[in-house]
């Protein structure tokens, strides 16, 4: 029986995938090698790991506005996470998700989403309902 996590209404389609979790933040420009589809910033908690088709679970979004275009560019090449779950999104990632038609949710009622979900969990994200199912 999957656990149900409530969050704020988000953006994008319903998706299911495998979680990749870290207590760290996210910027498409600062942290990624978008051609290889890996976290490239040496100091990032997920450095060297592939994000392709994962449900990325991180603390917050940081840094620059480039991520808004970059999610669209990543999506066009088919090398993207399936969804983003944040404790708190910033406006840029939400804008990028809207353009790229990617799923994104934040503000979880039960606390820190980076401890509520573990790497390897199967996660279903339903942004329009503000619900995430974890099994």
């Amino acid at each position, binding site marked *: 029986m999957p656990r149900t996590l409530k969050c704020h209404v988000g953006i994008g389609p319903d998706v299911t995938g495998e979680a990749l979790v870290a207590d760290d933040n996210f910027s498409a420009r600062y942290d990624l090698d978008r051609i290889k589809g890996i976290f490239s910033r040496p100091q990032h908690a997920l450095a060297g790991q592939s994000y392709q088709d994962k449900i990325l679970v991180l603390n917050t979004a940081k840094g620059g506005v480039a991520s808004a275009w970059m999610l669209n*560019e990543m999506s066009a090449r088919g090398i993207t996470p399936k969804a983003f779950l944040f404790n708190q999104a910033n406006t840029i990632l939400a804008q990028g998700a809207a353009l790229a038609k990617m799923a994104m949710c934040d503000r979880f009622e039960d606390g820190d989403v980076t401890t509520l979900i573990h790497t390897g969990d199967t996660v279903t994200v339903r942004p329009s309902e503000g619900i995430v199912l974890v099994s």
Partner: protein
Amino acid sequence: MKLDSEEQAMLSGELGPARKWALEHQIQLGRMFDAADMVPVSQAHMMADPESLGEAGVAFMEGFAAMDAADRRVAIPMITDPRGVDLSYYDPLGQTEEMANLERRFIAACQSLGIIMTDTCINYQTIMPPVLGDHVAYGDTGVVIYSNSVCGARSNFEGGPSALAAGLTGRTPRYGLHLDVHRKATRRFRITSQPQGLTDWGVLGAVIGRKSGSYWEVPVIEGVENIPTSDEMKHMGAAMASYGSTPLFHMVGVTPECRTLGDVDGEGLAVEAITDSDLDALRQSFGAKGETVDVVVFAAPQLSLVEMQTVADLCRGRQKHGDTAFLVCTAASVYGDAQRIGFNQAIEDFGGKVLQGTCFYQQYAREIGEANGWTRLLSNSAKIVNILGGYGYAPALASMEDCIDAAVAGRIV
């Protein structure tokens, strides 16, 4: 969200497909961030370099350019952030014709929408600064934090697509920094030593940004004894936004919404001291004294005319090391003035290159680093050293004076 009759007409497609897309995009954002309605904005500023856009983003813009002229024209003055390719100087940097062509196509598309190609992240110093209470839709985090904090304008971080949407509708969803409730201080920092020079201000911004750590935190800073210059505020804000995703700060007695701590409800907040050890720890993470330097970069943000004069004065009568590249990025309008006054010539006599309308980290930084064999990069910008680690560089930080000494020596002094 409550929509007025004009917004309803946009949403229905009555005012054309461009404005229909724009309003649909904005409603998604408004719903996520609980906007009650839309707010008119006086200007939009779009970040869109070709590396970020890719073929997909350029084709997206060309889709608007193919629409009827009346449908595609932006509704308010709309300007642009730095470009990724200086079309007068790209082959020597290792940028390709394919990169330049993406840039050319994007510029053509923007111009057909009536977007003004200002190509600057210092529009608040060069184009038309917003005023207190002015609602705007700005991209570039450095532009937003300066405009919110120093000018008292009201903008969220508007990524390229959302800035475009605001340009087309003349509005943005009323959430975040457009609301009084999100402009009150949430963290209270007290400095214990006074910053000296641009890099010190950048380091202070970086430390406060890292401690704040969220778009939704608003730092208020106490203890500043000397009013910072516009360039010092620029470096501090850009670094704070880079390390913390911070869009607004207040400085007691300096910034317009914070004549007193009480103006921003800061009196009840716990005081957090910014100590010398906090500042030193950040500097040390970007220290590399004695090491060979491949490229010295002044950028992020683009240099003002006053910074251009300082660089030129430090370069005069000297010559950079033959194995060290030296790049300066400035706005196209500043480039013109610097050319007329002679600052560019002084930098080029030193062996450096002034790039116009670009910013280094937005210029396919990974690819030009690989093409030129650049790893060790030195800059006086606390922002750029934060960004470039992910692009394969080993970035180091030093004052403008020390950067130029290093360019002469070929190693970090």
